[in-house]
């Protein structure tokens, strides 16, 4: 690796220290674009955003603009949003329906399947010799529909999305399944929030990986209460009964916070202000327990699929993607999910809550953005860069084979019930990050050793 950019030791998990360089260094940022964003599986959008043939939604993969669209036959594609002739964006609308994407520059046009279907002066200027079959829109190398969520990778050598997720599927499922456990039973509410924050994209990525330590920064919202019953942030009465866990999948770089209820627990009533809402959630909880069996005891909360997709699986139920916009700027996109089958009153109630909680106007997240902004700003100087950040919280408390009342959870777990907080999940994120920066092949990436809860790679 170039000396000016990434080097071994910047992420030193044996000491629990990470250099500020990885957040503020221009060279490392450029390397990330190749090594992470051009290789990893990235979240692009949701099938409920493009229900009909010809529907499209313009999304991003890293710095790149892409078009998520459904062709005439109903097949879903993801294309680079750039004309093959001279690079102009072929679509500058956020979403819509179209039979064809026509480049405004020289008029090349592409079908919703990406094929080049129109070339002005094809006969006269190209003498009919241009091989149009070779000049369709650039397609992602791989695409998958996972419970309605569309993911893509630019790397043909990447493993399947299922392998990429590994054991984390157990935890990601709750974001996209209905609250009653129904497979992929969610849909996106209209309106995707997009906004800019002056910080490196890894600040929000680590926050959503499970920064359980930053609760103090949300004290003001806890005092005034935005939760569904008007108290706290999220109103989670079940939390008092549950084991609170950090769960990380070490060889994949995904991690989440979760609550595990005791077997005998009957959930305390929630969403009491409205009987329609409280009935709905109570019935869903019961149905989920019936369907999932013992797994129904697990409730995932906030987590991150490596590298840049974050989720909140409980209410407010959202997906966030951290799009890098240079080392010092991030564009955040936020999707909001509700159960497809929920009564309208439940959807309305949740929408109201989501808006006051999340995003730039959200009373909780406003304070997060302030922290990321000024943590980044104060880490840029040559002196500041000499001093690593501390990530040693909870080191050595990882449990490799966690089991609770007979339920064995895959991944490496830290029990926060007594400890309150750990940085286990954050270390997991940066361990994987360093592996991506170092490993030249997917063989190397998918064969990372991780003995005894304290993974070795990049340490």
């Amino acid at each position, binding site marked *: 690796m170039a000396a000016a950019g990434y080097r071994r030791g910047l992420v030193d998990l044996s000491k629990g220290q990470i250099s500020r360089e990885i957040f503020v260094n221009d060279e490392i940022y450029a390397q990330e674009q190749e090594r992470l964003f051009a290789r990893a599986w990235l979240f692009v959008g949701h099938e409920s955003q493009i229900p009909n043939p010809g529907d499209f939604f313009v999304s991003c993969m890293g710095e790149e603009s892409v078009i998520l669209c459904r062709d005439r036959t109903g097949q879903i594609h993801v294309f680079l949003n750039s004309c093959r002739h001279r690079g102009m964006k072929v679509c*500058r*609308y*956020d*979403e*819509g329906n*179209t039979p064809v994407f026509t480049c405004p520059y020289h008029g090349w046009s592409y079908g919703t399947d990406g094929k080049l279907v129109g070339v002005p002066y094809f006969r006269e200027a190209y003498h009919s010799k241009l091989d149009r079959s070779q000049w369709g829109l650039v397609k992602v190398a791989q695409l998958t529909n996972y419970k309605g969520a569309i993911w893509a990778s630019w790397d043909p050598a990447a493993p399947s999305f299922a392998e990429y997720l590994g054991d984390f599927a157990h935890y990601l499922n709750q974001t996209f399944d209905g609250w009653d456990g129904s497979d992929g039973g969610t849909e996106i*509410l*209209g*309106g*995707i*929030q*997009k*906004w*800019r*924050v*002056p910080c490196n994209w890894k600040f929000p990525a680590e926050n959503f990986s499970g920064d359980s330590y930053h609760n103090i*920064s949300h*004290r*003001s*919202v806890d*005092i*005034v*209460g*935005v939760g569904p019953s008007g108290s706290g942030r999220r109103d989670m009465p079940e939390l008092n009964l549950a084991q609170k866990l950090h769960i990380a999948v070490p060889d994949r770089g995904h991690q989440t916070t979760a609550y595990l209820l005791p077997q005998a627990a009957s959930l305390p009533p929630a969403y009491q202000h409205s009987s329609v809402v409280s009935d709905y959630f109570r019935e869903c909880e019961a149905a989920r327990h019936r369907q999932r069996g013992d797994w129904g005891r697990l409730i995932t909360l906030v987590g991150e699929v490596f590298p840049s997709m974050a989720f909140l699986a409980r209410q407010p139920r959202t997906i966030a993607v951290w799009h890098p916009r240079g080392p010092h700027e991030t*564009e955040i996109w936020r999707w*909001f999910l509700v159960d497809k089958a929920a009564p309208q009153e439940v959807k*309305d109630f949740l*929408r*109201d809550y*989501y*808006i*006051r909680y999340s*995003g*730039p*106007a959200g*009373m909780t*997240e*406003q*304070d997060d*953005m*302030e*922290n990321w*902004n*000024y943590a980044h700003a104060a880490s840029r100087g040559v002196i500041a860069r000499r001093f690593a950040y501390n990530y040693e919280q909870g080191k050595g408390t990882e449990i490799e084979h966690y089991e609770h009342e007979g339920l064995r959870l895959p991944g490496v777990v830290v029990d926060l019930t007594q400890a309150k907080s750990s940085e286990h999940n954050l270390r997991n994120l940066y361990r994987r990050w360093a592996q991506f920066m170092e490993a030249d092949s997917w063989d190397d990436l998918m064969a990372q050793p991780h003995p005894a809860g304290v993974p070795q790679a990049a340490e």
Partner: protein
Amino acid sequence: MMDQKEQLSRLLLKAEIEDFLYHEAELLDERRYEDWLKLAADDIRYWMPMRRNVKFGEQQREFTRADHDINWFDEGRETLERRVRQIMTGIHWAEEPVSRITHIVSNVQLLEAIPSVDAAAEVLAKCRFLIYRNRVETETDILVGKREDRLRRVGESWQIARRKIILDQNVLLTKNLTFFF
């Protein structure tokens, strides 16, 4: 042709509305948030949609819908009160230290007066806003757009019954919206 009396009534009403909007901006800029809340009707709807880039002819899809979609703001008095209380805790870090904010309100148009200009109990007023926010050291945001306010006469003054805020941005270029429009 309007007769002179009607013209005069209209002018007086417009001046009254302008005075109200300037007074409101003054309260916000002077951080008198609790006084500002008194100008909000109990049933106020405070709505700021997001704006999409859409094809010509599809403008009806440009704005996210109130009471239906995700918006930047779509809330009533209860949430507005919570926002004020949050600032007043003194530990709402996104507004601590507090921002320096100026609201410039201009291009005031009187779109509707119910039942009449002479005896207006409710008006619909449109204006342009420019909000300048500067905080901490050099952090600066400029937000420009239009506002449509449905105002209700209450005694000698007015209350805001509905505020529609149209910001001229697609990707929000401000990290957070910790202030009022």
